[in-house]
């Protein structure tokens, strides 16, 4: 995921990512953010005094998207906004090394109190795992400011469940970069230009023909 995460870093964000292969509980995603908050106060740390600990986003893909939502619902004091890539339909939640039971890996976007951007694709695998209908249902279930974006093509190819991965790993993430970065710029830095993608009289996301069926509320 370093193509995308380094892209975010190039805008000034500090991105931390658990190396675990299963992050659906959200516990490690949340702990990683707290690690940086702690480091910000440690004199000898490279982060000392440089981090905005009041502006924290939880972001993820697939099982990690569920984990990002869970980190936010479990830790609303810390997490200010959420962004998901192919948040799976709940039927796919199961027990794994991170989750003793399926319920431990089941995210509940309806319980979010933070603004959220649900992104997914029209790809074959997402039709099974995180379909446009699934994402729309999540979008409609929330009571907060939310955006729904379903991308058609990315880097010249039809986008699907693993597109967010690095090109070196077979992904095609570039199509997501614009609005994903804009969401964080809007939510964490109050960037008015970025806000224009998701708010105002003509949110750009809604007019983008490569993101058909998008919505904001």
């Amino acid at each position: 995921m370093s193509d995308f995460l380094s892209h975010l870093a190039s805008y000034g964000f500090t991105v931390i990512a658990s190396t675990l292969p299963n992050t659906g509980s959200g516990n490690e995603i949340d702990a990683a953010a707290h690690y940086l908050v702690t480091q910000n106060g440690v004199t000898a740390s490279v982060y000392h005094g440089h981090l905005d600990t009041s502006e924290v986003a939880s972001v993820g893909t697939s099982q990690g998207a569920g984990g990002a939502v869970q980190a936010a619902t479990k830790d609303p004091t810390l997490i200010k906004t959420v962004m998901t890539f192919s948040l799976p339909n709940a039927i796919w939640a199961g027990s794994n090394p991170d989750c003793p039971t399926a319920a431990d890996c089941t995210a509940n976007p309806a319980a979010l109190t933070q603004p959220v951007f649900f992104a997914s694709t029209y790809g074959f695998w997402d039709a099974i795992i995180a379909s446009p209908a699934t994402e729309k249902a999540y979008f409609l279930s929330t009571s907060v400011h939310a955006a729904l974006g379903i991308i058609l093509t990315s880097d010249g190819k039809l986008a699907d469940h693993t597109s967010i991965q690095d090109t070196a790993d077979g992904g095609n993430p570039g199509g997501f970069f614009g609005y994903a970065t804009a969401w964080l710029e809007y939510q964490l830095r109050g960037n008015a230009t970025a806000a224009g993608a998701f708010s105002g009289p003509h949110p750009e996301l809604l007019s983008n023909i490569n993101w058909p069926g998008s919505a904001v509320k």
Partner: protein
Amino acid sequence: MTALAIRARRVAASRGARVAAALAAAALMASLTGAARQPAPLYPVQAAFASPGPYATTTGTVTDTSGTVIYDVFRPSDYSALGFQSPIVTWGNGTGASPS
């Protein structure tokens, strides 16, 4: 002139302005779809934030007490160059994937 535009002119002569206008519009759209010909981005917010950001970046790792890498970090390499405090993004991978 494109073949489509030539047809548009012939249709205007034979069938009327309305159909010709539609064909001319189609010709115009066809000529504009090449990204290199667009004078400005069609979706400026998307274009602005799809471009690489202004700050040089670096990566790092965080290990636990047993020496296992538990986090990967992607961050600006020089915090003093930002002019603002760096917001935090915590990321969760897909099943089996790794951040790097």
